[in-house]
């Protein structure tokens, strides 16, 4: 079981309200990703759930029981830290077995669980090494191993992949997703990378300055962003956000068009190509359209458009409309 409910959870450090008040429901078995720019309070929120920080007000309940005042160890949650936080003087085996030892588990049963975790994580050959003798990806796996042996109610991950190089990151991302498929345990995953959020999450929680901007499935957020912040944050390259007369034409303060929803050829917007990047599979071009601004366009790999060309653009796909407060219009 791993059902977590936050009710009006608030956190301030001295004068500063880092989390002004959050309500959130996390269902058992869900993969929830907290995403938002750096410094928006993602780690703080995760640490509140873990019990490593005290809430200023509000309640946190885990599986229906009030856990607000429980110490971290009593909450039945396991956490994977950004720095991995492995114990450097212990072997991989001792690291993974530490929570079991602390729980006073029978050594034979602990050994079985360590072996099982090690084989799931491909660490069997490294059990006697110290963390200092492992690569970044292996250390990450040890940290995950230490979390899974306890069979916690939920896993908490705080930007676990940010110290890995790009290739390893993609691999570990898939491994964590697969782990979730096989364990079916609740996971809360913090990241500032919207690609990680989109690829892994059942449910994304977009945070901005300690506030929840929107909660929803990845595609829900992509197709129906509730406000300008979410529209700009989800999707890569970023959605084009246009204000002024062009927006007024659509009866909105701001309109948004995703780069992949704009076609090059014939259309109402005309401008000169600034940057053009050709990746083979896709082409990314920036077009300076007078009166509207720089428009990002994502075209097919065959798009033969280069720096200095004059092109016409057609916002063929969905136009998102927002009011003066940044909220989406129906």
């Amino acid at each position: 079981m791993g059902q977590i409910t936050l009710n009006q959870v608030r956190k301030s450090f001295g004068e500063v309200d880092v989390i002004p008040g959050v309500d959130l429901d996390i269902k058992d078995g869900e993969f929830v990703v907290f995403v938002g720019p750096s410094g928006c309070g993602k780690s703080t929120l995760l640490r509140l759930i873990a019990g490593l920080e005290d809430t200023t007000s509000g309640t946190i309940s885990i599986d229906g029981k009030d856990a607000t005042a429980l110490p971290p160890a009593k909450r039945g949650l396991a956490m994977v830290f950004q720095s991995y936080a492995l114990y450097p003087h212990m072997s991989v085996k001792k690291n993974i077995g530490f929570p079991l030892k602390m729980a006073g588990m029978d050594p034979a049963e602990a050994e079985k669980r360590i072996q099982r975790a090690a084989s799931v994580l491909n660490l069997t050959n490294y059990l006697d090494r110290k963390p200092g003798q492992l690569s970044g990806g292996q250390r990450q796996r040890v940290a995950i191993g230490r979390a899974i042996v306890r069979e916690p109610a939920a896993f908490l991950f705080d930007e676990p992949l940010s110290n890995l190089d790009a290739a390893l990151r993609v691999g570990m991302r898939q491994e964590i997703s697969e782990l979730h498929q096989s364990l079916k345990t609740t996971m809360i995953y913090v990241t500032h990378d919207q690609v990680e959020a989109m690829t892994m999450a059942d449910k994304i929680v977009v945070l901005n300055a300690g506030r929840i901007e929107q909660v929803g499935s990845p595609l829900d957020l992509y197709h129906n962003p509730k406000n300008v912040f979410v529209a700009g944050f989800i999707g890569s390259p970023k959605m084009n956000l246009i204000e002024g007369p062009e927006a007024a034409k659509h009866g909105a303060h701001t309109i948004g068009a995703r780069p992949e929803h704009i076609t090059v050829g014939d259309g109402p917007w005309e401008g000169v190509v600034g940057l053009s990047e050709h990746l083979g599979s896709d082409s990314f071009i920036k077009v300076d359209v007078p009166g509207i601004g720089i428009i990002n366009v994502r075209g097919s790999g065959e798009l033969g458009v280069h720096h200095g060309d004059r092109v016409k653009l057609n916002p063929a796909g969905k136009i998102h409309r927002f009011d003066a407060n940044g909220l989406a219009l129906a």
Partner: protein
Amino acid sequence: MATQSSRLAARLMVAPSVIVLLVWMAIPLAMAIYYSFRLYRLISPERTGWVGFRNYTWFINSPEFWMAISNTLLLVGGVLAITIVFGTLIALLIDQPIWGQGPLRILVISPFFVMPPVAASIWENLFMHPQNGMFASFAQGLGMKPILFMESYPMASVIFIVAWEWLPFATLILLTALQSLSSEQLEAAEMDGASAVSRFRYIILPHMTRAITVVILIQTIFLLGIFGEIFTTTQGGPGSASTTLPYMIFKQAIAAKDIGRAAAGGIIAVILANIVAYFLMRGIGRHLDA
């Protein structure tokens, strides 16, 4: 330092200091060895000559000698035990975020700045003195007889005073080690269900082993030669109850004015120090490697 010529240059450049150090060390040592085989008493300087190992055998057969060796080891061991245990506890305490942390830390460090004879005099006269001392007035206030610290427990008193002086050093080194421990490791242990005691036992203590090793090695070097505190308080007495090897050598050189015997004692002290160093490096030296 890769090429042949740069290695040669490096050797040439460190050569002067190596030579100075060698001379600095070798000449006194050679002189001590020379005198330790000579008859050389300042009371009768005209009687000289080679005496073989007689200075050494006198030392080893003297009833004071084994007492002095055991007192020396007791002093080193006792002070190390006290400073490391209490140094760790104080370091844990002042690492907590408490009000007035800055001044508190300076206060904790301050005994280290008091000169050994001064510290010893303060403890002897203001605290442990059977008539004027604070402990005596406490004892009288409670209707008990004052404890005669320097007479009844001379070695324990000396160990206590020296430990008081060295506690700040140990605390300081252990505190810096404590502060270099990542808080995420402690938080991870907390999530893993480790109690405060288990966190200390399995996370903090292993993290501090290297610092503890440094404290042991450095303090041992200095503690083997402790002299001033004994000279100002017990003078090695009563009898020779608090005579250590350095103090016994001092008594031979200054009181008995027998340079030959004192030199022999010095050589024995050097051998003792080397034996201690050997066992220390065997026992805990591996903690110094990263």
